[in-house]
């Protein structure tokens, strides 16, 4: 009897699910944005603000402007826990949703990006990996479907070395200085290493690579090593819990915070708050403003939180990674807007959105109009350059908020671009891709 019940229950469920699937009817004039998020697991402290930023900006477009030129923005979240196997599942699940399929993917994980890059050209869905993922994807001749504006890990590393040289008093003063790269021991963390090695050779500083294994809750041995080395500067590529642990450990060994610079994934509020006063003076790179004083935040608080600033704060509005989600969502929706100018104001396919990304030209005027005045720099993607090598700035945590602590630093194009092109060429050769002609 027990078994019969079980069988009946299973059958009933299956039939029920079938009905629900059939009931889903495609609607017209919607632009679907898939969201690979991680609101649980070891990387949740970083994942939640990003996901909220995306969600709020998409919702804002619908509420404030009635969508993108009248086309409603739809989106769906899928939890990846930053794991590559769940990333595949989410990608397959979401890529066909909406009337014309997914517009583009923002994986928010270098590992998942690597996995999706080969699929993008097959499924004809572009990837917008904003400031992460495969660096050499900046070469648009080889990586037609991948975009990584405004700057890559390699550009960022060169900008950080530029910053260190200014602190030291000139490039010639870098010689003999000891610099540690404390990095997440994964595709993401290792990405900056080759560039740093080239720069070390060029400027004569001593580079030590210190890896931290996933997820990074335990870093005692790494910091013992750092204490022995006594580095002049530490550059960190961390993510998730690794960041807060590193900042706490740095405080424990009384390492001067103003010589400790995180990359733009290691400089959000969730990273510094747990370390308390010890984190005061911590530096990190960024390519957009922090805080909730920009025009777009006023709109978000008004339209989404009904003017309730406290509720907005609880939803991470204004945190560094929240703002990054908003900026990323803006790039994505502006790409769609660009594509609409060519293909018409209707649901666009991934292929059409790709055209929009490649011809994306965000001017200061557009930024002012959208409420991003002073928050991000203008940007123009070309067929050849999917990165744009936008300027990078150093921000400083004063215990309560982030503020800019340097002028805008332009990455060293003369060093980074040849490396990018060499790596892209190697990839093209390995995968039998003929680079397209951009002229």
């Amino acid at each position: 009897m027990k078994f019969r019940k079980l069988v009946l229950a299973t059958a009933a469920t299956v039939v029920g699910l079938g009905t629900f699937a059939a009931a889903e009817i495609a609607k017209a004039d919607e632009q679907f944005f898939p969201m690979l998020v991680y609101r649980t697991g070891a990387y949740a402290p970083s994942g939640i603000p990003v996901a909220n930023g995306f969600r709020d900006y998409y919702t804002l477009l619908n509420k404030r402007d009635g969508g993108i030129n009248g086309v409603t923005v739809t989106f769906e979240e899928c939890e990846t826990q930053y794991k590559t196997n769940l990333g595949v599942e989410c990608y397959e699940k979401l890529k066909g949703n909406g009337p014309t399929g997914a517009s583009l993917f923002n994986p928010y994980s270098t590992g998942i990006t690597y996995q999706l890059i080969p699929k993008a050209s097959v499924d004809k869905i572009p990837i917008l990996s904003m400031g992460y993922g495969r660096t050499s994807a900046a070469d648009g001749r080889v990586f037609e479907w991948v975009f990584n504006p405004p700057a890559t890990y390699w550009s960022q590393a060169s900008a950080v070395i530029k910053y260190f040289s200014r602190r030291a008093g000139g490039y010639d003063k870098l010689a003999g200085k000891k610099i540690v790269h404390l990095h997440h021991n994964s595709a993401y963390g290792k990405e900056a290493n080759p560039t740093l090695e080239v720069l070390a050779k060029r400027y004569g500083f001593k580079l030590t690579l210190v890896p931290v294994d996933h997820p990074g809750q335990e870093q005692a041995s790494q910091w013992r090593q750092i204490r022995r080395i006594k580095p002049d500067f530490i550059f960190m590529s961390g993510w998730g819990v690794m960041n807060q642990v590193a900042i706490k450990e740095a405080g424990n060994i009384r390492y001067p915070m103003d010589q400790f610079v995180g990359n733009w994934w290691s400089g959000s509020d969730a990273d510094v708050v747990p370390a308390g006063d010890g984190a005061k003076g911590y530096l990190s790179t960024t390519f957009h403003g922090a805080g909730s004083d920009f025009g777009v935040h006023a709109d978000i608080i008004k339209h989404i939180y009904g003017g309730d600033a406290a509720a907005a704060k609880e939803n991470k509005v204004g945190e560094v990674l929240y703002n990054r989600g908003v900026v990323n969502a803006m790039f994505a929706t502006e790409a769609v807007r660009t594509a609409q100018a060519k293909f018409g104001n209707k649901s666009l396919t991934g292929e059409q959105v790709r055209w929009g990304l490649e011809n994306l030209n965000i001017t200061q005027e557009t930024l002012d109009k959208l409420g991003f005045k002073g928050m991000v720099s203008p940007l123009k993607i070309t067929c050849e350059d999917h990165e744009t090598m936008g300027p990078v700035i150093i921000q400083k945590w004063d215990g309560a908020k982030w503020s800019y602590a340097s002028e805008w630093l332009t990455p060293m194009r003369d060093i980074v671009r040849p490396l990018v092109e060499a790596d892209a060429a190697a990839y093209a050769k390995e995968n039998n891709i003929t680079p397209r002609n951009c002229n």
Partner: protein
Amino acid sequence: MFYREAGQFKTTYQDDQAVFPVLQDKAAVFLLILVAYAVPFVADEYWLQAIFIQFLVFALMAIGLNILMGYAGQVSLGTGAFAAVGAYACYKLTTNIEGMNIIVAILLSGGCAAAVGVVFGLPSLRIKGFYLAVATLAAQFFILWLFNKVGWFYNNNPSGTITAPPRELFGVLITGPSASPEARYIVCLTFLIVFAWFAKNLVRGRIGRNWMAIRDMDIAAEIIGIRPLQTKLLAFAISSFYCGVAGALMIFCWLGSAETEAFDLVNVSFRVLFMIIIGGLGSIGGSIMGAAFIILVPIFLTNFPPMVGLDISTALQKHLEEIIFGVMIVFFLIVEPEGFARLWQILREKLRKWPFPY
């Protein structure tokens, strides 16, 4: 009634020793295989690519671990490491040797995994039970560290990720991004069927009986003339071979590209261990059922609330999935500690006597 064996006479030894001596079983298995091969005609890409292929890969790995743990009684937490050896070996073989057949490469990488498995199986002669589990844990940590640390294993690319290159079999692409999910599915399914059939025969024969003797009481086994070292190492070798092949398939047919994190302790080793505990230790069919449970149920639980129109946040959905799945595991283990294999056995007995049980 459904399972009446009356009238099925065995007139040859061959018939009597068949893998499935009962006609109904044979028919059911053939039907199942037919259905499995027909799946690509009905399932969409999401089901194939994200669920079924994953299931086939993990089922193969579960059979591998079950050989070692369920039949030979050697506890191992190194499954992920052996799978990683297979995956990286296959990557090195296909990228460095021009024109190598992909199937040959996968089998050879299984061989590499077997060799590594034997090395890490050596302590099993002296260490038993949980202590052996800890010793195999060393394999897990050491091998993943090695693959992350030494650039040679991933051809020194800057990110340390290995990516499956496109390879053909009989003129059809079966790996790489352009390979159709149907082709990958068929390849994985064929591997699983052949390897499951091989394992089933292995455990019924002399080798399997040796393993079981060692498992049940190693001193007694030694006294009746079974050599513990060879028997245990053979179990490690064959088990790692299975895991290695599954690991190669994992990268080449399922994920497409991965770093060592894809083979970590929780995601692979523990997961496969749970599969065989839930499915049934010492049962090939149980390994497959366990893999199905561990892979399909969480996906079902995640997709269920939105399907019935419940609008709950993604995080809550994930947490609910974990809670309900945990409760289900506890429930099943209380109801039937010996796993799905035993449950199926009970059901089968009941069906034989139905409708007049005694």
